[in-house]
Structures are given as C-alpha cells and as structure tokens.
C-alpha cells in the first residue's frame, strides 16, 4: 500500500483544525485563571459564541460582524460571571456551573430558528500554495484566519504574561491579590478584564465550531469541548505553550477515532469516542500526582474571592 505523503499532511492538518477551539478557549481561560479566577463556564460561553456567530452570519452575511459578534456575546455572558464573582463575591465553582447550564439553555432558545440551515462558506487563505509543497502544503496553507490566530495565540499569551507590564500585573493579582492591592493595583478591575477576555476567546472558539469546523447549528454542539479546554489548562500547568501540545494530543484523539473506523479497526465506536475523556483523566492524574509541582505552578489565589474592605 502506497501512502500518499499529502494524505499524511491532510491528516495532520485535520488534527490541527480540531485543536483550534481547544487552544482558543484554553488560552482565554488561562489568562482568567492566572488572575486568580476559576471560571467553569467555558462550555456555556463557547455554546453562546457558537450560536451567536452562526446566527449573525446567517442574518447579516457579514464575516466580520459574525466573528466579532460571537466574541462580544462571549464577553456579555461572562460579564454575568464577573459581576457575580467579583462584585457580589459569589462562589466561583457554583457561578461557573450556573453559567454553563444557562448558556446551553439560552443558546438552544436562540438557535430554535437556525436548526437545519446550511452554513455559509468561510474564506481560507493561501489556497493556491496548498498543492505546491508536498506534505507541508496542506499543513501550512488553505486555512481560515481564525486557524492561524489560534496557533499564534499561545506564543502571544506567553509573551504577554512574561514580558509585558500588564502581564506581570495579571500574574501578581493571581498570585497575591493582597500585595497587588497594597501596591495600588485595582484587583477587581484586573479580574473583570481577565474574565471578559476569557469570555471573548471562548466565544471565538464556539464561533469557529459553528462557522468553520462544521458550519451549521446543532443544539449542544460544543459537546464537552469547554470542559476539555478547562482540563487542558491544568494539563499545561498554566503554561500557554504546553496548551498547544495538549490541544494537539486531544485533536489527534478525535481525528484518529474517525480514521480507525474508516480502516475497519474492530473497536466499538463508543470506546473511541470516550477516549479523549479517559485520556484527560489519566493525564490529570499523572500531572497532579506531584502535589508540590502543582502547587508551585497553580496561581496561588485561584478560585478564592478577594474583597477589599473599605
């Protein structure tokens, strides 16, 4: 059997494509968590982004409005979370769960009239270069702009956290809100901003699913990707570059499952579908076993409310 080298390229490209929503949502959540806030509402924000992007695209037929609208929708829904956890000092875990339940419900409500409508085609870049270079061509070219942005994002995030002043402030707020506050930093404001940013990235991740990856609207179409994104942040030990690696592994598991079925491997399809979830658990166990390492890399105030008496 001759394996076409371009076929391998296509498989790698499809793995990367399925990693895109995970990278986007994880990088967003990473910033939120670095500021000390644990937002378990990623799944809810993603699904809101998915329906908003798809609906705006169908109604306005404008890519820009749809993509930015989805991000704005993510920001708006995360504002509820920010207001509750930062202004009203509610429990992060419970509020995040409420956000997910609420988001899934609202998205289905909005999406009622958009079920069964075929999605519009999303333009891709460098289409012509795809066939010129073997192997690398399909990997590097012919993708949407969101795809390229996603693969740049971990590096941008890493640079932002390590090299910029605002990044330093975010880390300070997450590691020691008391000292940051004493330095005159408005902890609440920084956390608000980080939560809204996380919302925007989750919204974009959702829009990628409904507008580019599988251009249609299906109720509950995020299918747990938001939760895997949350697990990826732990997997990465809050290091954006490692998110890239993790997302590729999970993307790979998703794609392999299709190809194993295609070549007739006799494993029940349900087992293959369950694989990413099982692997997530195993990876979490391996990562967390060393409690000292986890404690060193976890933002110290993660999930704890901060309230300045005035």
């Amino acid at each position, binding site marked *: 059997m001759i394996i076409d080298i371009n076929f391998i390229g296509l498989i790698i490209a499809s793995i990367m494509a399925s990693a895109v929503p995970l990278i986007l949502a994880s990088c967003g959540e990473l910033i939120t968590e670095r500021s000390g806030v644990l937002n378990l509402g990623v799944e809810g924000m993603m699904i809101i982004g998915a329906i908003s992007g798809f609906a705006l695209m169908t109604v306005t037929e404008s890519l820009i409005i749809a993509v930015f609208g989805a991000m704005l929708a993510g920001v708006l829904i995360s504002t509820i979370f920010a207001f509750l956890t930062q202004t*009203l000092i509610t429990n992060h875990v419970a509020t995040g769960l*409420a956000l997910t*339940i*609420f988001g899934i419900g609202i998205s289905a*409500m909005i999406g009622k009239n958009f079920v069964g409508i075929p999605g519009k085609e999303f333009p891709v870049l460098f289409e012509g270069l795809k066939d010129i270079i073997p192997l690398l061509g399909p990997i590097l070219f012919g993708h949407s702009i969101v795809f390229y942005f996603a693969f740049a994002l971990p590096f941008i995030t890493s640079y932002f956290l390590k090299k910029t002043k605002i990044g330093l402030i975010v880390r300070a707020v997450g590691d020691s809100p008391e000292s940051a506050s004493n330095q005159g930093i408005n902890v609440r404001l920084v956390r608000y901003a980080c939560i809204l940013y996380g919302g925007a990235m989750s919204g974009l991740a959702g829009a990628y699913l409904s507008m580019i990856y599988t251009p249609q609207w299906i109720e509950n179409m995020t299918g747990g990707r938001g939760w895997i994104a949350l697990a990826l942040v*732990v997997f990465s030990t809050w290091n954006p570059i490692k998110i890239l690696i993790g997302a590729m592994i999970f993307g790979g598991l998703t794609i392999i499952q299709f190809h194993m079925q295609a070549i007739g491997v006799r494993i029940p399809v349900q087992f293959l579908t369950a694989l990413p979830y099982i692997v997530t658990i195993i990876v979490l166990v391996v990562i*967390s*076993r060393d409690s000292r390492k986890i404690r060193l890399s976890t933002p110290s105030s993660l999930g704890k409310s901060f309230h300045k008496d005035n």
Partner: protein
Amino acid sequence: MIKIVKRDQPSRAIFFFTPVLAIFLTLVAGGLIFFILGFKPFEALKFFFIVPIADKYGFSELLLKATPLCLIAIGLSFCFKSNNWNIGAEGQLTFGAIVSGGIALLFYEQEGFYILPIVILAGAIGGMLYASIPAILKTYFNTNEILVSLMLVYVSKLILDYLVVGPWSNPEGFNFPETRQFSDSAKLPLLFEGLRIHAGIFLALAAVVISWFVFYKTYLGFQMKVSGFSLKTAKYAGYKGKKMIILVFLISGACAGLAGVGEITGPIGQLHREISPDYGFTAIIVAFLGRLHPVGIIFASLVVAITYLGAETAQIFMQIPKYTGQVFQGMILFFLLASDYLLFFKFKFIGSKK
C-alpha cells in the same frame, strides 16, 4: 444616602429567605424573556408554572420528577457541605442504572419478591463504585474532582450507549437501541392506578430523614460541617480527611445510583439511551436552592421539577424549545448566588447630614 455595610454575623433569617427571593426574581426575569420573545409574559408563566400541575396527573408527574432530583441533591449535600465538588452525579446515576439494569435483565423472565431488592442494591453499589473513582483520585493522587467526575459523565453515557446498541439490546427489538423490558418483579410498584408516581419516592424520603439525622445528630455530620468551614481547622482537630472525602463521595454516589434505579425500574422499565434528562446536573441547583438542608431540598426539588414540566408544556402549547427549562434553572442559581450578598452585607440608610 444608602451605604453598604458588612454584617457582624451572617443573617440566619436571610439565609432561608433568599431562596424565595431568588425564585421570585427568576419569575420576573423569565417573564421578561418571554416578553422579548414575543409572548404574553403572564400567560407564558402560567403555562410554565401553573398549567402543568393543575390536575391530579400533573401533580403525580411533579412528584415523579422531584423524586430523583431530591435523592441526588441529598447525596450531593454531603459532598458540598464538606467542600467536595462532585459534579458528576449524572454519571453516577447512569452507572447505577447500568449495573442495576444488568441485574434486572438477568432476571428478565423470572418473578420473585427477592429480585427488586437485589436490583435496587445493585444500583446503589454501581453509583458508589463510579463515585469512588474521583474520590480515590482526589485523596491519593491529588487530582481535581470537578474535572474527573465530569469527564466520567461522558464516559458513562457512552458505556450505556454501547450496551443498549450492542450486547444488551433486545434480541426481538428490531435493532432499536434499547434492552428488553424488565420483569414485573424488577419494577417499583406504582402508588396509584393510572398515575406514574411509584414507590421510589419512599427512597427519597428515607434519604431525607437519614441525612437530617447524620447532619445534625452525629459526629460525622459535625466533622463535615467543620471541614466545610475550614479545612485547616478540621486538620487541626485531627479529623481523618481522606476517609471523610471517600465517605461523602460514596454516599452521594449511592444516592445518584438509587435515582438511576428509580428511573429505569419506575417510569422507564428498561434501559435505553435517554434515561435521565440531566437530573444529575439539575440536582446541583436543587442542593444549593435547598441550602444543603434536607427539608429545604424537598421544597427545592419540587420547585425545580416544575421547570421540567413547564418546559414540556410550553413546548407543546407555545412551541418554546424545551431547553427553556435550563434557562430558568441557570437563572435560579444566578439569583440565589447573587442574593447571598445580603447574607454578609446590609444596606444602611444614613440620614442626610449636611
């Protein structure tokens, strides 16, 4: 002028008043949403909250839906009181249903008084086994229980799917994804002729009584309370933290497993793909709305059960998608958490001194 002042002590009266306030605010916000969608708000709310329970049949359906919610929420309150975030009750319910369903299928052409107790016990054990995974990983491998218990929900649903499509599917079932019907001996008895409410409600009530006793009359209940307030204090007092974590997970897994048994040996009578409309997740809201108090949870499960029925009625009469129920559930939790602010802070009116 109004000033926000911190209370010296959280107010106990407000502790039990805020859930009522949260429900009221949810109704107001829900009416607003219906209005935006172009429905008459009061009529829509009537279809959602009053029409479904206006007759005998509706009331039986309400109890039918409230039973698993109450049972699971009681179990979860053990976890939440002691600061353990088990959010995978849906998976424990599913796995309990799988184990008990498997036992029930073994007896499918037999009758006997001993079958039902075995099936029920199997469900509780199934739920406990499944809950023990996040518990053991948390205690011995330091793994986050939120993510593990949640990932296991997806896994359990896929196991169920595999079984009802493959090895356990009804040989005479024309390839429908479902098992055989259980024998009558493996089904919970119905309480009234013509209504679906079944004996499972007694399991829920028993759980309420037992949990009340454990919370307020035993040393374990006291330990849980202390650990919930401060893990450091609990450690200082010399409580065996690991043992307690595993115990509360087992209790909550058993309750979720029993809820699964109640569904498949009650209204369903077999295994198929959709044995639970996310009762395991909704029960989290019930537990909070009931303030982790056994009696509070009874009321909360009734209130939240209405959102299920209301969503069904609204779908039939007004073509509103059934997911509206989830919107209401999410809002109840939002408003409840928000109104907790009143527990710790109060508004003080200060006379305008110039």
